[in-house]
């Protein structure tokens, strides 16, 4: 026997008290859905875990109406202090049920228990703690005194960090005084539904958070709903563009966290051993299903061969397999569809001349699996150097000078993340200035913190989550005029009587006020905020 096999160390699933079927969480209660229920499966085995309801248009109407009632009746009237205390409660309950949530997340998503236990769930709790403290300090959020909440936030989140994405969305929204209708991803609804139980335990007023499950159609109906004031989406760039188009003219403030093709730049003076770890973490963390993954390795030509050799050596020690085994480093791919996409893109890369290498590891016979893969001999024009693969596949390119590194790193429609590995401070800082990316990790990678803003440039989206900037995405300045809305949007809003947005009235008033104001007089007081925008 090899010691390195360590013997199986499976996390017990006995902490899970799953129901066989889950409904929608609307107005504080679990209710049935109008759409066809679907099964959520374990990607590691392909087996069914539970049946989950699908919200149809009527359910979305009811959820938005519940959120509106809760906003008008309760949440917007509550003091920041009390909102904060609710969030603290939620944070503590998440900590208390951390083990259960970690197991459920691993089971439903396929990611290693090591990650859900040590990263996902602790980050969820941290996010609620951080924003709990903001709830009564909004005057300092950067929008001037007494900023206002926006109203009802529609939030659509992805499957790669199911509960963590939920926390990134819900915590700042509630802290700022908004109410929420959130749609978890179709393949990973489980932890959101357990989270609904936590909200009940926290005694959060009914309707403040509503959780509607379903597929893309459910999400599309939610963001398009005329009763919604704010939309926040994390997911693919293609869907993000569709959402932006759908809500154009509706005056909904929008935050988009979209795709990426992060450049991880390794100089010849890098702390090499840590760079190797950073590269491995950058692309194999969560099976590479990370929007900010360091999926494009840009390595200085002089150390290319050594880096590749060391990477291969390191990758041979990666344990691929049962997500619930505490020693698993790389788990299952989230879905058959995603596995197919990873496979197709990797094959396209090989067809274009890339050389693929994977460690010789055995994959389980059932479920969705993909070996950690290196692609060498990749040219900047290759598909695998441009398209987001969203899987454990690293494309390796080279550069010769810092200027070339910057040019290649920025040569992408995306701009979410980048890594720099060098011991030379002045060059690192200059490089960080020139990289068009929202998050830059220097001598580290894939680090997240509720205090640290996260989000992209260019087609990676706009708006930030985390930090002071993250709460700003759910607020407007006290004297901000209502957002501009097209006639069609105004008509739709007045038609949806149960969910009417009070902002409509403000909009009309704001316009009337500015029109009657003489230019010269207004000009004499250059202070008032009047810009509304989608981007922050």
């Amino acid at each position, binding site marked *: *026997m*090899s*010691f*390195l*096999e*360590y*013997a*199986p*160390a499976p996390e017990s699933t006995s902490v899970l008290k799953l129901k066989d079927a889950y409904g929608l969480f609307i107005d504080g209660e679990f209710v049935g859905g109008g759409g066809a229920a679907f099964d959520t499966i374990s990607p590691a085995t392909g087996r069914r875990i539970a049946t989950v309801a699908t919200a149809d248009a009527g359910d979305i109407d009811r959820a938005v109406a519940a959120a509106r009632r809760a906003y008008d009746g309760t949440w917007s009237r509550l003091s920041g202090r009390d909102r904060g205390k609710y969030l603290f409660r939620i944070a503590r309950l998440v900590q208390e049920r951390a083990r259960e949530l970690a197991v459920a997340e691993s089971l439903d998503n396929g990611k290693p228990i*090591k990650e859900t236990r*040590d990263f996902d769930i602790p980050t969820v709790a941290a996010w609620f703690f951080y924003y709990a403290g903001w709830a009564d300090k909004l005057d300092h959020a950067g929008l001037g005194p007494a900023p206002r909440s926006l109203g009802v936030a529609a939030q659509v989140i992805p499957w790669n960090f199911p509960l963590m994405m939920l926390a990134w969305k819900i915590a700042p929204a509630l802290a700022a005084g908004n109410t929420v209708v959130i749609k978890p991803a179709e393949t990973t609804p489980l932890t959101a539904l357990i989270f609904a139980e936590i909200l009940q335990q926290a005694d959060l007023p009914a309707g403040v958070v509503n959780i509607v499950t379903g597929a893309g159609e459910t999400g599309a109906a939610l963001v398009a709903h005329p009763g919604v004031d704010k939309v926040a989406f994390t997911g693919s760039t293609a869907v993000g563009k569709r959402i932006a188009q759908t809500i154009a003219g509706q005056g909904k403030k929008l935050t988009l966290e979209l795709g990426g093709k992060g450049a991880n730049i390794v100089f010849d*003076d*890098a*702390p*090499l*051993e*840590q760079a190797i*770890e*950073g590269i491995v973490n950058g692309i194999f963390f969560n099976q590479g299903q990370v929007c900010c993954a360091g999926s494009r390795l840009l390595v200085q030509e002089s150390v290319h061969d050594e880096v590749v050799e060391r990477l291969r050596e390191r990758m041979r*020690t990666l344990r691929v397999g049962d997500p619930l085994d*505490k*020693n698993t480093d790389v788990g299952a791919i989230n879905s058959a569809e995603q596995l197919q996409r990873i496979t197709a893109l990797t094959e396209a890369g090989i067809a274009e001349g890339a050389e693929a290498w994977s460690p010789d590891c055995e994959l389980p016979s059932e479920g969705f699996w993909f070996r950690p893969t290196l692609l060498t001999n990749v040219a900047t024009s290759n598909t695998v150097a441009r398209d987001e693969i969203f899987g454990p596949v690293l494309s390796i390119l080279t550069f010769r000078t810092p200027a070339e590194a910057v040019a290649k790193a920025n040569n992408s429609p995306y701009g979410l993340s980048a890594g720099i590995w060098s*011991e030379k401070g002045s060059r690192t800082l200059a490089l960080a200035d020139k990289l068009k990316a929202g998050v830059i990790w220097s*001598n*580290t990678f894939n680090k997240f913190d509720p205090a640290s803003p996260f989000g992209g440039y260019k087609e990676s989206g706009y708006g930030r989550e985390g930090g002071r900037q993250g709460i700003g995405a759910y607020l407007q300045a006290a004297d901000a005029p209502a957002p501009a809305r097209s006639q069609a949007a105004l008509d739709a809003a007045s038609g949806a009587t149960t969910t009417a947005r009070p902002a409509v009235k403000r909009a009309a008033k704001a316009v009337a006020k500015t029109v009657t104001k003489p230019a010269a007089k207004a000009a004499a007081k250059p202070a008032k905020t009047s810009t509304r925008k989608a981007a922050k």
Partner: protein
Amino acid sequence: MTLERAVAPAQRAVDILGGDVSESALKGYLEGLPGVDAVGLEQRAAGLGTRSIKTSSKAWALDRIIELIDLTTLEGADTPGKVRSLVAKALVPDASDLTTPRVAAVCVYGDMVPHAVEALGAAHGDPDQGLVSVAAVATAFPSGRASRAVKLADTRDAVAAGADEIDMVIDRGAFLSGRWGQVFDEIVAVKDACRKADGGYAHLKVILETGELNTYDNVRRASVLAILAGGDFIKTSTGKVSPAATLPVTLLMLETVRDWHRWTGEKIGVKPAGGIRTSKDAIKYLVTVAETLGEEWLVPHLFRYGASSLLNDVLLQRQKLTTGRYSGPSYVTID
């Protein structure tokens, strides 16, 4: 500047740096090593520390840990009687379970070597053959603050008394003030003093005293320096300075040894010493060796724990695995 030497430079250094092993050649080589990012190193070590070892792997690990221990007594109050007691424990760690393996070596001060050799008797020998060797600390251990003549005499004395392994300390003062050639020469000279009457050499473990070197870049450079000068093992600490062995420092030394193997094919040993007191900690080191260098490094001539209290904790865990009940300190012997 070429160094003036009493003995020829180590062949390894000649191979790497060319015939003229000058201070500036050493400096250039060591400063050209890749830097170490402390945060990344510590995170990697912490990650390796989270491995979960169960059942058959754990049983194997506990036995292997015992087989890799340098059972140590380094007190001013040491006596021949104390050393005999230590040797008895080394040979039969757990009288209640005679399947318990022996430790690799006993580690004592130079003047205690004859007593250790005598107590071991026929069991004295190569730990790779299941025997127990005698390691002696030398070179004015632990501070190393003595003239070179004294350090060499200290070494020769221990070797002559039958020590199979010499644990020397480097001159940290010289290292920290940049006199790397001096440190190098001293290791070369000590290695020379390790020559036994039969023409063979006592194994040389070079103690870097990483707690005093302080930075990881220093540890990396000192590790390579010690290897270049002819060390068979690099060892973290004397156990007299805090911090002694830590997982990140040991990981860094293992990585250095792995790089050396990659460059030259030569296998160097690593010995973390001081502060490893529990089985749980010791298993983390075992995992770190296995995942950095491979399982073939988990043998007495390539990896050791310098420890005294660790053995009893391993025995307690071992008893738990055997009997299914938790054991207590009354059920293991004090040495």
